[in-house]
Protein backbone atom coordinates (compact mmCIF):
# COMPACT_ATOMS: atom_id res chain seq x y z
CA UNK A 1 0.00 0.00 0.00
CA UNK A 2 1.48 3.30 -1.08
CA UNK A 3 1.76 6.39 1.01
CA UNK A 4 -0.95 8.08 -0.96
CA UNK A 5 -3.33 5.25 -0.16
CA UNK A 6 -2.64 5.66 3.51
CA UNK A 7 -3.56 9.32 3.48
CA UNK A 8 -7.05 10.06 4.62
CA UNK A 9 -8.62 11.28 1.44
CA UNK A 10 -12.05 12.47 0.61
CA UNK A 11 -12.81 10.83 -2.67
CA UNK A 12 -14.58 12.75 -5.35
CA UNK A 13 -17.56 10.70 -6.38
CA UNK A 14 -17.71 12.03 -9.89
CA UNK A 15 -15.02 12.87 -12.33
CA UNK A 16 -15.97 16.52 -12.56
CA UNK A 17 -14.53 19.12 -10.18
CA UNK A 18 -16.78 19.98 -7.27
CA UNK A 19 -16.94 23.43 -5.82
CA UNK A 20 -18.18 23.70 -2.25
CA UNK A 21 -17.51 25.55 0.95
CA UNK A 22 -15.63 24.57 4.04
CA UNK A 23 -16.97 24.95 7.55
CA UNK A 24 -15.16 28.29 7.73
CA UNK A 25 -16.95 29.56 4.64
CA UNK A 26 -13.90 29.32 2.42
CA UNK A 27 -14.57 27.84 -1.00
CA UNK A 28 -13.30 24.34 -1.60
CA UNK A 29 -12.71 22.98 -5.05
CA UNK A 30 -11.63 19.66 -6.34
CA UNK A 31 -8.29 19.19 -7.97
CA UNK A 32 -7.18 16.36 -10.18
CA UNK A 33 -3.61 17.39 -10.73
CA UNK A 34 -2.67 17.55 -7.06
CA UNK A 35 -2.99 13.80 -6.63
CA UNK A 36 -0.62 13.23 -9.53
CA UNK A 37 1.73 15.86 -8.16
CA UNK A 38 1.76 14.05 -4.81
CA UNK A 39 2.47 10.78 -6.58
CA UNK A 40 5.64 12.30 -8.01
CA UNK A 41 6.73 13.39 -4.54
CA UNK A 42 5.96 10.10 -2.82
CA UNK A 43 7.94 8.22 -5.42
CA UNK A 44 11.06 9.84 -3.98
CA UNK A 45 12.78 8.72 -0.79
CA UNK A 46 13.20 12.21 0.71
CA UNK A 47 11.30 14.58 -1.53
CA UNK A 48 12.13 18.25 -1.63
CA UNK A 49 9.29 20.69 -2.22
CA UNK A 50 9.40 24.34 -3.18
CA UNK A 51 6.30 26.35 -2.27
CA UNK A 52 6.03 29.76 -3.93
CA UNK A 53 2.97 30.79 -1.95
CA UNK A 54 2.43 32.34 1.44
CA UNK A 55 3.15 29.94 4.23
CA UNK A 56 0.16 27.87 5.31
CA UNK A 57 0.67 25.91 8.51
CA UNK A 58 -1.60 23.04 7.54
CA UNK A 59 0.17 22.68 4.18
CA UNK A 60 3.49 22.47 5.97
CA UNK A 61 2.06 19.74 8.18
CA UNK A 62 0.55 17.93 5.21
CA UNK A 63 3.69 17.89 3.12
CA UNK A 64 6.15 17.68 5.98
CA UNK A 65 4.53 15.23 8.36
CA UNK A 66 2.44 13.09 6.04
CA UNK A 67 4.66 13.02 2.99
CA UNK A 68 8.03 13.53 4.66
CA UNK A 69 8.98 16.40 2.39
CA UNK A 70 11.62 18.95 3.08
CA UNK A 71 9.84 22.18 2.24
CA UNK A 72 11.27 25.45 1.02
CA UNK A 73 8.82 28.27 1.55
CA UNK A 74 9.58 31.19 -0.76
CA UNK A 75 6.64 33.55 -0.75
CA UNK A 76 6.85 35.26 -4.13
CA UNK A 77 3.52 36.98 -3.58
CA UNK A 78 5.10 38.94 -0.73
CA UNK A 79 8.00 39.94 -2.97
CA UNK A 80 5.63 40.98 -5.73
CA UNK A 81 3.55 42.94 -3.27
CA UNK A 82 6.59 44.77 -1.98
CA UNK A 83 7.77 45.66 -5.48
CA UNK A 84 4.29 46.82 -6.41
CA UNK A 85 4.02 49.10 -3.39
CA UNK A 86 7.55 50.41 -3.93
CA UNK A 87 6.82 50.90 -7.63
CA UNK A 88 9.90 48.88 -8.58
CA UNK A 89 8.20 46.26 -10.73
CA UNK A 90 10.62 47.03 -13.56
CA UNK A 91 13.35 45.52 -11.45
CA UNK A 92 11.37 42.42 -10.60
CA UNK A 93 12.81 40.24 -13.40
CA UNK A 94 16.34 40.98 -12.24
CA UNK A 95 15.30 40.37 -8.66
CA UNK A 96 13.96 36.95 -9.59
CA UNK A 97 17.27 35.92 -11.12
CA UNK A 98 18.94 36.10 -7.73
CA UNK A 99 15.94 35.34 -5.57
CA UNK A 100 16.42 31.63 -5.02
CA UNK A 101 19.31 30.16 -3.10
CA UNK A 102 18.23 26.61 -3.92
CA UNK A 103 20.78 24.64 -5.92
CA UNK A 104 20.10 23.53 -9.45
CA UNK A 105 18.18 20.27 -9.93
CA UNK A 106 17.58 20.01 -6.19
CA UNK A 107 13.79 20.16 -6.04
CA UNK A 108 11.36 17.32 -6.72
CA UNK A 109 8.21 19.38 -6.80
CA UNK A 110 7.23 23.03 -7.15
CA UNK A 111 3.93 24.48 -6.04
CA UNK A 112 3.74 27.43 -8.39
CA UNK A 113 0.07 28.11 -7.59
CA UNK A 114 -1.16 31.10 -9.66
CA UNK A 115 1.80 33.46 -9.30
CA UNK A 116 2.39 33.58 -13.06
CA UNK A 117 -0.98 35.26 -13.56
CA UNK A 118 0.31 38.29 -11.66
CA UNK A 119 3.57 38.65 -13.59
CA UNK A 120 4.34 40.52 -16.77
CA UNK A 121 6.03 38.58 -19.54
CA UNK A 122 9.59 39.50 -18.57
CA UNK A 123 9.07 38.53 -14.97
CA UNK A 124 7.29 35.33 -15.94
CA UNK A 125 10.17 34.33 -18.19
CA UNK A 126 12.71 35.10 -15.48
CA UNK A 127 10.73 33.04 -13.00
CA UNK A 128 10.23 30.01 -15.21
CA UNK A 129 13.92 30.00 -16.03
CA UNK A 130 14.70 29.75 -12.33
CA UNK A 131 12.04 27.13 -11.67
CA UNK A 132 13.30 24.92 -14.48
CA UNK A 133 16.82 25.31 -13.14
CA UNK A 134 15.85 24.18 -9.64
CA UNK A 135 13.65 21.30 -10.72
CA UNK A 136 15.15 17.83 -10.87
CA UNK A 137 14.72 15.75 -14.01
CA UNK A 138 11.36 13.97 -13.69
CA UNK A 139 10.34 16.58 -11.12
CA UNK A 140 6.86 18.11 -11.22
CA UNK A 141 5.47 21.64 -11.18
CA UNK A 142 1.86 22.42 -10.39
CA UNK A 143 0.45 25.70 -11.65
CA UNK A 144 -2.94 27.37 -11.79
CA UNK A 145 -3.88 29.81 -14.52
CA UNK A 146 -6.93 32.03 -14.68
CA UNK A 147 -9.16 31.80 -17.72
CA UNK A 148 -11.36 34.79 -16.99
CA UNK A 149 -10.42 38.34 -16.04
CA UNK A 150 -10.64 39.05 -12.31
CA UNK A 151 -11.86 42.46 -11.23
CA UNK A 152 -10.74 42.34 -7.64
CA UNK A 153 -7.19 42.66 -6.45
CA UNK A 154 -6.41 39.79 -4.19
CA UNK A 155 -4.06 36.89 -3.83
CA UNK A 156 -5.14 33.42 -2.93
CA UNK A 157 -3.73 31.01 -0.40
CA UNK A 158 -4.33 27.46 -1.50
CA UNK A 159 -4.88 25.23 1.49
CA UNK A 160 -4.58 21.51 0.93
CA UNK A 161 -7.62 19.82 2.44
CA UNK A 162 -6.63 16.42 1.14
CA UNK A 163 -5.20 15.00 -2.03
CA UNK A 164 -8.27 15.87 -4.12
CA UNK A 165 -9.51 19.09 -2.51
CA UNK A 166 -8.08 22.57 -2.11
CA UNK A 167 -9.47 25.42 -0.07
CA UNK A 168 -9.25 29.01 -1.36
CA UNK A 169 -8.33 31.72 1.09
CA UNK A 170 -8.24 35.20 -0.47
CA UNK A 171 -6.31 38.10 1.00
CA UNK A 172 -5.84 41.67 -0.19
CA UNK A 173 -3.23 42.61 -2.76
CA UNK A 174 -1.88 45.73 -4.39
CA UNK A 175 -1.13 43.88 -7.59
CA UNK A 176 -3.67 42.93 -10.22
CA UNK A 177 -3.65 39.86 -12.38
CA UNK A 178 -2.08 40.50 -15.76
CA UNK A 179 -3.69 39.52 -19.02
CA UNK A 180 -5.06 36.02 -19.28
CA UNK A 181 -2.61 33.52 -20.72
CA UNK A 182 -3.81 31.29 -23.49
CA UNK A 183 -2.84 27.65 -23.49
CA UNK A 184 -0.20 28.16 -26.10
CA UNK A 185 1.28 31.07 -24.12
CA UNK A 186 1.57 28.88 -21.05
CA UNK A 187 3.19 26.07 -22.99
CA UNK A 188 5.68 28.48 -24.54
CA UNK A 189 6.43 29.98 -21.18
CA UNK A 190 7.28 26.56 -19.75
CA UNK A 191 8.76 25.29 -22.97
CA UNK A 192 11.50 23.39 -21.14
CA UNK A 193 8.86 21.31 -19.37
CA UNK A 194 6.21 19.07 -20.78
CA UNK A 195 2.55 19.25 -19.93
CA UNK A 196 1.39 15.94 -18.49
CA UNK A 197 -2.02 16.95 -17.14
CA UNK A 198 -4.28 19.90 -17.85
CA UNK A 199 -7.72 20.39 -16.36
CA UNK A 200 -10.19 23.23 -16.62
CA UNK A 201 -11.91 23.59 -13.27
CA UNK A 202 -15.38 24.93 -12.64
CA UNK A 203 -13.95 27.99 -10.93
CA UNK A 204 -12.36 29.07 -14.22
CA UNK A 205 -8.90 27.99 -13.18
CA UNK A 206 -6.84 25.83 -15.43
CA UNK A 207 -4.57 23.55 -13.46
CA UNK A 208 -1.58 22.17 -15.26
CA UNK A 209 0.96 19.64 -14.12
CA UNK A 210 4.34 19.97 -15.78
CA UNK A 211 7.15 17.45 -15.66
CA UNK A 212 10.78 18.10 -16.38
CA UNK A 213 12.06 15.65 -18.98
CA UNK A 214 14.52 13.08 -17.71
CA UNK A 215 17.02 14.10 -20.34
CA UNK A 216 17.30 17.59 -18.95
CA UNK A 217 15.63 20.90 -19.32
Amino acid at each position, binding site marked *: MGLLDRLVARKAESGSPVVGASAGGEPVFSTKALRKFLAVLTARESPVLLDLGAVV*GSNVSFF*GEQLGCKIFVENLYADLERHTRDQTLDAFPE*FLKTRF*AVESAAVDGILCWDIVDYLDRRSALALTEQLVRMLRPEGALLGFFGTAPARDTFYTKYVVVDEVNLKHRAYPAACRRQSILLNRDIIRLFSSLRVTESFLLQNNLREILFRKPAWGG
Partner: protein
Amino acid sequence: MWKRDEAVRPVSGQPVAPPPQTPAPIGASSNHPGTNQKVENDIVNIGKSVVIKGELNGSEDLTIEGQVEGTIQLRDHVLTIGPNGRIKAQVFAKSVIVLGQVAGNVTASEKVDIRDNGSVDGDIVSPRVAIAEGAHFRGSVDMQRKGAPAQPQKPAGTSATASVAPGNAAATQTPAAQPSTPAAHRAGA
Protein backbone atom coordinates in the same frame (compact mmCIF):
# COMPACT_ATOMS: atom_id res chain seq x y z
CA MET B 1 1.13 49.92 62.28
CA TRP B 2 -2.32 51.12 63.37
CA LYS B 3 -3.43 51.74 59.83
CA ARG B 4 -2.26 48.33 58.70
CA ASP B 5 -4.12 46.60 61.50
CA GLU B 6 -7.27 48.48 60.58
CA ALA B 7 -6.90 47.63 57.00
CA VAL B 8 -7.00 43.91 57.61
CA ARG B 9 -9.78 44.01 60.20
CA PRO B 10 -13.09 42.53 58.94
CA VAL B 11 -15.79 45.10 58.51
CA SER B 12 -19.30 44.23 59.72
CA GLY B 13 -18.32 40.61 60.11
CA GLN B 14 -17.65 40.13 56.42
CA PRO B 15 -14.55 38.23 55.40
CA VAL B 16 -11.73 40.24 53.98
CA ALA B 17 -10.95 39.51 50.39
CA PRO B 18 -7.30 39.00 49.62
CA PRO B 19 -5.64 41.92 47.89
CA PRO B 20 -5.90 41.65 44.13
CA GLN B 21 -2.82 40.29 42.49
CA THR B 22 -2.02 41.70 39.11
CA PRO B 23 0.18 39.49 36.99
CA ALA B 24 3.51 41.01 36.22
CA PRO B 25 4.03 41.69 32.55
CA ILE B 26 6.47 39.50 30.72
CA GLY B 27 9.94 40.89 31.01
CA ALA B 28 9.31 42.95 34.14
CA SER B 29 9.78 41.95 37.75
CA SER B 30 7.14 43.15 40.17
CA ASN B 31 9.63 43.42 43.02
CA HIS B 32 12.43 45.05 41.11
CA PRO B 33 11.20 47.02 38.16
CA GLY B 34 14.68 47.48 36.84
CA THR B 35 15.61 43.83 36.97
CA ASN B 36 15.84 42.19 33.60
CA GLN B 37 15.95 38.56 34.63
CA LYS B 38 14.10 36.56 37.22
CA VAL B 39 13.70 32.98 38.32
CA GLU B 40 10.11 32.13 39.04
CA ASN B 41 8.55 28.69 38.81
CA ASP B 42 11.68 27.42 37.04
CA ILE B 43 11.17 29.76 34.11
CA VAL B 44 13.87 32.26 33.39
CA ASN B 45 12.84 35.45 31.73
CA ILE B 46 15.21 37.68 29.82
CA GLY B 47 13.67 41.11 29.80
CA LYS B 48 13.26 43.32 26.80
CA SER B 49 16.07 45.70 27.75
CA VAL B 50 18.65 42.91 27.78
CA VAL B 51 21.01 42.36 24.86
CA ILE B 52 23.07 39.19 24.84
CA LYS B 53 25.75 38.49 22.27
CA GLY B 54 27.42 35.12 22.30
CA GLU B 55 26.42 31.62 23.33
CA LEU B 56 23.44 31.10 25.62
CA ASN B 57 23.20 27.69 27.30
CA GLY B 58 20.57 26.57 29.75
CA SER B 59 18.96 23.64 31.51
CA GLU B 60 15.55 25.10 32.22
CA ASP B 61 12.74 26.72 30.31
CA LEU B 62 13.53 30.22 29.11
CA THR B 63 11.52 33.14 27.84
CA ILE B 64 13.32 35.83 25.90
CA GLU B 65 11.86 39.28 25.49
CA GLY B 66 15.15 40.97 24.74
CA GLN B 67 17.73 40.59 22.01
CA VAL B 68 20.07 37.65 21.58
CA GLU B 69 22.73 37.27 18.91
CA GLY B 70 24.83 34.15 18.57
CA THR B 71 23.69 30.70 19.67
CA ILE B 72 20.97 29.51 22.04
CA GLN B 73 21.01 25.97 23.42
CA LEU B 74 18.30 24.59 25.68
CA ARG B 75 18.66 20.92 24.89
CA ASP B 76 15.83 19.52 27.00
CA HIS B 77 13.74 22.58 27.61
CA VAL B 78 11.30 24.99 26.10
CA LEU B 79 12.45 28.26 24.60
CA THR B 80 9.85 30.96 24.18
CA ILE B 81 10.60 34.03 22.10
CA GLY B 82 8.20 36.60 23.49
CA PRO B 83 6.44 39.26 21.41
CA ASN B 84 9.28 41.67 22.08
CA GLY B 85 12.03 39.12 21.52
CA ARG B 86 14.49 39.73 18.69
CA ILE B 87 16.76 36.79 17.99
CA LYS B 88 19.63 36.61 15.52
CA ALA B 89 20.91 33.22 16.43
CA GLN B 90 21.11 29.54 15.80
CA VAL B 91 18.57 28.00 18.16
CA PHE B 92 18.63 24.48 19.60
CA ALA B 93 15.96 23.41 22.08
CA LYS B 94 13.41 20.74 22.89
CA SER B 95 10.56 23.02 21.90
CA VAL B 96 10.58 26.52 20.51
CA ILE B 97 7.61 28.88 20.67
CA VAL B 98 7.97 32.03 18.58
CA LEU B 99 5.87 35.11 19.21
CA GLY B 100 8.60 37.59 18.30
CA GLN B 101 11.22 37.62 15.57
CA VAL B 102 13.87 35.04 14.84
CA ALA B 103 16.53 35.33 12.14
CA GLY B 104 18.51 32.12 12.11
CA ASN B 105 18.11 28.39 11.94
CA VAL B 106 15.90 26.69 14.51
CA THR B 107 16.38 23.06 15.54
CA ALA B 108 14.01 21.43 18.00
CA SER B 109 13.83 17.83 19.09
CA GLU B 110 10.07 18.03 19.68
CA LYS B 111 8.26 21.01 18.21
CA VAL B 112 8.53 24.46 16.69
CA ASP B 113 5.47 26.63 17.12
CA ILE B 114 5.29 29.96 15.27
CA ARG B 115 2.36 31.84 16.70
CA ASP B 116 0.31 34.65 15.24
CA ASN B 117 2.60 37.62 14.43
CA GLY B 118 5.65 35.48 15.10
CA SER B 119 8.36 35.59 12.46
CA VAL B 120 11.10 33.18 11.48
CA ASP B 121 13.65 33.80 8.75
CA GLY B 122 15.70 30.65 8.64
CA ASP B 123 15.59 26.91 8.32
CA ILE B 124 13.59 24.77 10.74
CA VAL B 125 14.47 21.20 11.65
CA SER B 126 11.90 19.59 13.92
CA PRO B 127 9.59 16.57 13.86
CA ARG B 128 6.60 18.84 14.43
CA VAL B 129 6.05 22.34 13.14
CA ALA B 130 2.99 24.52 13.71
CA ILE B 131 2.64 27.82 11.90
CA ALA B 132 -0.26 30.11 12.72
CA GLU B 133 -2.25 31.95 10.08
CA GLY B 134 -0.74 35.38 10.75
CA ALA B 135 2.81 34.17 11.16
CA HIS B 136 5.71 34.99 8.86
CA PHE B 137 8.09 32.29 7.74
CA ARG B 138 10.77 32.19 5.13
CA GLY B 139 13.14 29.31 4.83
CA SER B 140 12.92 25.55 4.76
CA VAL B 141 11.16 23.05 6.99
CA ASP B 142 12.66 19.62 7.54
CA MET B 143 10.55 17.42 9.76
CA GLN B 144 13.26 14.91 10.40
CA ARG B 145 12.19 11.63 11.90
CA LYS B 146 15.31 10.98 13.84
CA GLY B 147 14.85 10.76 17.58
CA ALA B 148 18.12 12.23 18.68
CA PRO B 149 18.29 15.99 19.06
CA ALA B 150 20.69 17.64 16.71
CA GLN B 151 24.03 18.68 18.03
CA PRO B 152 24.77 22.32 17.53
CA GLN B 153 27.89 23.39 15.75
CA LYS B 154 29.81 26.04 17.53
CA PRO B 155 29.84 29.12 15.35
CA ALA B 156 33.20 30.58 14.54
CA GLY B 157 34.04 33.69 16.45
CA THR B 158 32.11 32.82 19.60
CA SER B 159 34.63 33.01 22.37
CA ALA B 160 32.58 33.49 25.47
CA THR B 161 29.29 32.18 26.80
CA ALA B 162 26.30 33.30 28.74
CA SER B 163 24.94 30.40 30.75
CA VAL B 164 21.59 30.11 32.46
CA ALA B 165 21.43 27.40 35.08
CA PRO B 166 18.78 26.60 37.69
CA GLY B 167 19.02 29.07 40.53
CA ASN B 168 21.47 31.19 38.66
CA ALA B 169 19.97 33.44 36.10
CA ALA B 170 23.05 35.53 35.59
CA ALA B 171 24.00 36.11 32.02
CA THR B 172 27.26 37.51 30.85
CA GLN B 173 27.22 39.90 27.99
CA THR B 174 29.89 39.01 25.52
CA PRO B 175 31.28 40.33 22.27
CA ALA B 176 29.04 39.83 19.30
CA ALA B 177 29.08 36.56 17.44
CA GLN B 178 27.57 36.77 14.02
CA PRO B 179 25.45 33.73 13.18
CA SER B 180 25.91 32.38 9.74
CA THR B 181 22.50 31.39 8.48
CA PRO B 182 21.25 30.52 5.04
CA ALA B 183 18.58 33.15 5.58
CA ALA B 184 21.24 35.81 5.89
CA HIS B 185 22.57 34.87 2.50
CA ARG B 186 19.26 34.85 0.73
CA ALA B 187 18.79 37.56 -1.75
CA GLY B 188 16.24 40.09 -0.72
CA ALA B 189 16.24 38.98 2.88
